[in-house]
């Protein structure tokens, strides 16, 4: 089993931007939609290289989503990105009807996801987007673990899928540890570390934290399995049921509300197919606040140290 190391910190938003650019180089149908924060969500890479394929719509997210539907109906592959709070929530009805009900291949990038956005505070911390996007029929929901994976999944979402896709990524630099040679397929979870004492299922920025927790549990003789669930929908039932059967306990961790997020999605599978004891870690059904990313992650327990502690509690229960 591979021991993952940090190749250097990099924000997942840059992986998204690079993925869009790479896909666009090969496919002239890829078009971009900007809603005023183009560089912030790293769509500037695409906009600078393909200005004739980039449409500025201004601060009008609902209109932007409707426009993506029209572009997709005219055989384009539109990529629309803004902060996750707006991309997923302000636009929800437009995504539901114009994009999902029409089942159109539209890529929606939810930037600045999670509490780690930091000082901007609660209004800009997307903590509900997974819950809302994953209940929409036809929608695929992706949550890459690092910048390398964000790039890979973005390219695959554009090139290989047919329906609507929501990709969630963050603002702050985080460890970049996945390697391009890893088998990464949309709809398939990844076992990053084997173990049979319990399973830690993580998504997004929390995957690195989960790995660190697992490495330190190992020093105490506890062999945990770490699963990167980069695709939240369609969910990989197989890998989860196998984890339940072989490890008997599952802890989930995400930078999102504990209600309705990835942990809930895992529980929906486990409770129906192979019930085992679970612990869902995430944000505690409240709004965020200002602070540095590090301070906030610490305060709300979204750290390797706290994951380790919760694993021990789960094992003792």
């Amino acid at each position, binding site marked *: 089993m591979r021991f993952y190391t940090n190749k250097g910190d990099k924000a997942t938003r840059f992986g998204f931007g690079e993925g869009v650019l790479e896909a666009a180089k090969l496919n002239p149908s890829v078009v971009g939609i900007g809603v005023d924060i183009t560089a912030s969500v790293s769509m500037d890479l695409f906009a600078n290289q393909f200005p004739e394929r980039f449409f500025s719509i201004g601060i009008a997210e*609902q209109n932007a989503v*409707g426009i*993506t539907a029209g572009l997709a*109906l*005219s055989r384009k592959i539109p990529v629309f990105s803004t902060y996750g709070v707006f991309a997923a929530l302000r636009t929800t009805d437009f995504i539901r009807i114009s994009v999902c009900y*029409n089942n159109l291949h539209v890529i929606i990038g939810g930037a600045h996801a999670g509490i780690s956005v930091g000082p901007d505070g609660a209004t800009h911390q997307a903590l509900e987007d997974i819950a809302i996007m994953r209940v929409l029929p036809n929608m695929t929901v992706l949550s890459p673990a690092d910048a390398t994976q964000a790039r890979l999944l973005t390219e695959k979402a554009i090139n290989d899928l047919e329906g609507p896709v929501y990709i969630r990524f963050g603002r702050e630099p985080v460890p970049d540890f996945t390697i391009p040679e890893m088998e990464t397929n949309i709809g398939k979870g990844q076992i990053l570390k084997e173990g049979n004492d319990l399973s830690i299922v993580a998504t997004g920025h929390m995957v690195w934290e989960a790995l660190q927790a697992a490495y330190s549990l190992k020093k105490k003789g506890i062999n945990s399995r770490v699963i990167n669930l980069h695709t939240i929908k369609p969910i990989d039932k197989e890998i989860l049921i196998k984890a339940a059967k072989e490890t008997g306990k599952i802890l989930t961790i995400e930078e999102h509300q504990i209600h309705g997020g990835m942990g809930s999605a895992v529980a929906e599978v486990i409770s129906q197919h192979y019930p085992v004891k679970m612990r869902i870690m995430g944000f505690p059904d409240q709004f965020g606040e200002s602070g540095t990313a590090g301070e906030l992650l610490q305060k709300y327990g979204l750290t390797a140290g706290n994951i380790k502690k919760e694993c021990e509690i789960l094992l003792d229960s």
Partner: protein
Amino acid sequence: MATTQLEHIAKDIRKSVLISLTEAGSGHLGGSLGLADVFTVLYFQIMKHFPEKPNHPDRDKLILSIGHIAPVLYATLSEAGYFEKEELLTLRKLGSRLQGHPGRDHGLPGLELSAGSLGQGLSVAVGMALADKMDEKKREIFCILGDGELQEGSVWEAAMSASHHNLNHLCAIVDRNGVQIDGQTSDVMNIEPLADKWKAFGWEVLECDGNNIDSLKETFSKFPTVNKPTVILARTKMGKGIKTIENDFHWHGRVPAKSELPDFLKELE
């Protein structure tokens, strides 16, 4: 096509609307009757379309933003030959391709968009027009909006973006019947001065009698302009054709009882 011929088609479309909605037992009659003349002129005079090949790449496209008046779209599509008229009797029934509000997933030919949540269609039409502009494709995009729908702020986001991007091959048609579910539009939420609003958003504004074939023909002939999107404020009567229904907002979401249908059909003759 001669005006008398178009008037005859409009009458047939109204009959189909009445019959299908009576059979369905629910749905939106008033707006469907009011727009029959607009649909007739679009599908039988103005638009380039191919009922035998619904997905023809060179077709003009019609986006129905007010999905609730689907019955007049369905009646028009069947009148134009996209599918048999008998299928209109399946409207709103389980397994039907004629959903209560348009749903493309059910495979009805000629349907461009699943829609029903107000305030979205013009944005989709803008996206289509942008794609055509990028591809240098000569094609007209028509979008039908309700006047009450203009109370949705997103319509104005879309309006702003259409003129910003000089989408001159986009034509919005506003069904200006002045009524909505709660009553007169001027009482529920005033939208006037409407022409000035669209002008201020950079659109070419045309007005016409939306229940007069000649007026519609003449107005559509002024579209497109060289650099601006066009909006047609089409004054219509909700329930047009049936005197007891005309302009009565209670008929927005009502359908005839089976006992009323024969008299209504007779009145159209």
